[in-house]
């Protein structure tokens, strides 16, 4: 018998704390698969955020550091300069990377820091119980936008993949999702691409991944996945926004 699929070696055999229907687990598994396939787990350092993925260090069998809220790219910058031979990635939520840590994330792109940032965008602060995020959709009700996000009052959703793509030091910026097998395979392909670019020293690589938060959206896992596919992508169109073809 031929093994066609098995649990990624780098994915720790522990029960994770994510809610049913949350897509964080898929993204973790994809990163683990790519690290295995590329043989990079020994050389990888992950930077965990503050937010739902704060315990990511328990789930992937690589070196990890847990950053102060929003500071992941600054931490990653220090690690990469200390050891240019390691693969450094940050794994952040929308609040962490796009609100409190917006300056750090932007300067990763402006400075062209040779690290990778994964932004899990589920339009909400999950860990703290469902408050409005910089990426909360217009009209979306959260605990701190109880009447629905109104552009006049709370401003507009921040489009990170597009913004990062505009910066000179960005080697790659794209938005993918995880709501069906095709998109999962697409995300995996992009994870491999950003890791390859980093190992070539291309500059800042950024992958925004549209995910769900069934618990704080108040939806079943199936409905949440459907909402990501039909509603989230209207504000956050999927696609590649910048892609360096040749690395000097």
């Amino acid at each position, binding site marked *: 018998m031929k093994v066609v699929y098995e649990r990624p070696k780098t994915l720790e055999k522990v029960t994770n704390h994510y809610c049913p229907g949350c897509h964080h687990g898929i993204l973790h598994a994809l990163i683990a698969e790519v690290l295995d396939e590329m043989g990079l787990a020994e050389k990888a350092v992950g930077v965990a955020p503050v937010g739902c993925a704060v315990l990511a260090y328990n789930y992937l069998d*690589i070196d990890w550091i847990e950053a102060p809220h929003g500071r992941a790219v600054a931490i990653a910058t220090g690690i990469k300069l200390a050891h240019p031979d390691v693969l450094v990635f940050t794994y952040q939520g929308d609040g962490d990377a796009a609100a409190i840590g917006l300056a750090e994330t932007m300067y990763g792109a402006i400075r062209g820091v040779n690290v990778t940032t994964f932004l899990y965008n589920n339009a909400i602060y999950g860990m703290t119980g469902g408050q409005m995020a910089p990426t909360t959709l217009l009209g979306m009700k959260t605990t701190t936008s109880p009447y629905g996000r109104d552009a006049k009052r709370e401003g507009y959703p921040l489009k990170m993949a597009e913004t990062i793509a505009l910066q000179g030091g960005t080697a790659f910026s794209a938005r993918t999702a995880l709501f069906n097998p095709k998109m999962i395979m697409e995300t995996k392909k992009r994870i491999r691409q950003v890791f390859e670019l980093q190992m070539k020293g291309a500059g800042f690589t950024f992958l925004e991944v549209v995910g769900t938060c069934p618990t704080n959206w108040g939806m079943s896992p199936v409905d949440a996945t459907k909402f990501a596919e039909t509603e989230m992508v209207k504000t956050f169109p999927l696609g590649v926004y910048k892609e360096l073809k040749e690395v000097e």
Partner: protein
Amino acid sequence: MSERILMKGNEAVGEAAVRAGCRLYFGYPITPASEIAEYMAYRLPQVGGTFVQAESEVSAVNMVYGAAAAGKYAMTASSSPGFSLMQEAISYMAGAEVPAVLVNVVRGGPGLGDIQPAQSDYFQMTKGGGHGDYRLLVFAPYTIQEVVNLMPTAYELAFKYRNPVVLALDGLIGQMMEAVEFTDFRNPDEIPIPEWAVSGKFRHGGKKNINTSLDLIPEKLEAHNWKLQKKYSEIEEKETRFSYFGVDNPETLVVAYGTVARVAMSALKKLLNAGRSIGILRPITLWPFPKQALAEKARHAKRIVVLEMSSGQMIEDVKLSVFDPNKQYEFYGHPGGVTFTPTEIEEYLVRG
């Protein structure tokens, strides 16, 4: 000792760090500390190091956090308002036991204050300026030479105890020029990457390292806190430094550090020549504070005079150390960036 060079205090900080083996500097401009960043921007590329101008002090100190957690000698420097911004990461580093050397060229506050020398960050540096129970090793050199001499020690102790170390300067030491002798270069390639470093599993035997200050189980976090406290006790026991100048059992004991101690020294010399029973105890480490030495020197003293360029911060530690309500404690200080003159101190000590 190799060369004797006339150098500005802030530049000497940079050169001393380079010689101690630091090759990574992350900075953000602020008066009166900017020359440290400028010097490193010029100097580090010459020795294969890297200088990064961060987008804020918050980012700069987190870059240090990353580099130090990866096991390297890294540094940032700032001045009071910028140092306030770094407190979050400093608390994390203390919790996650990350070693780093941080320089605070203190200026007048509160708020934006001014850009003149001050000592009003004493509480912030010695009492844990950020959240949680933690301590930093705080050195307060009083000459540029002492800054240079303490630099290798600062790195050694930061890594020995896995704790941030602060060099507490003030605007005067940072900005003035003096002749200094430098130590020889330490080759950074010979500084081993510690086993605990977040540097890729292949560097430490294939077992993963996690660097975090988080532990959601209160009993485990309590145990970690007690472990930290045990470490701080060891630091208190082994690393307390001070100097004393004056008669053995002075009637008047002066306590001052940094620039104030240096100015006071001129006054003390004159008063000692005039036959007065006086002495000055100068803490070299603000934390750990030289409690025992101070209590011993204060045993026969009637007056204990604390001089600070603040409205009175260290005096609290002086009182706690002497712990005798029958002593006369006097505070004489200048908050807001005003520097003492020797004559002024002499007159105050004579006048009483």
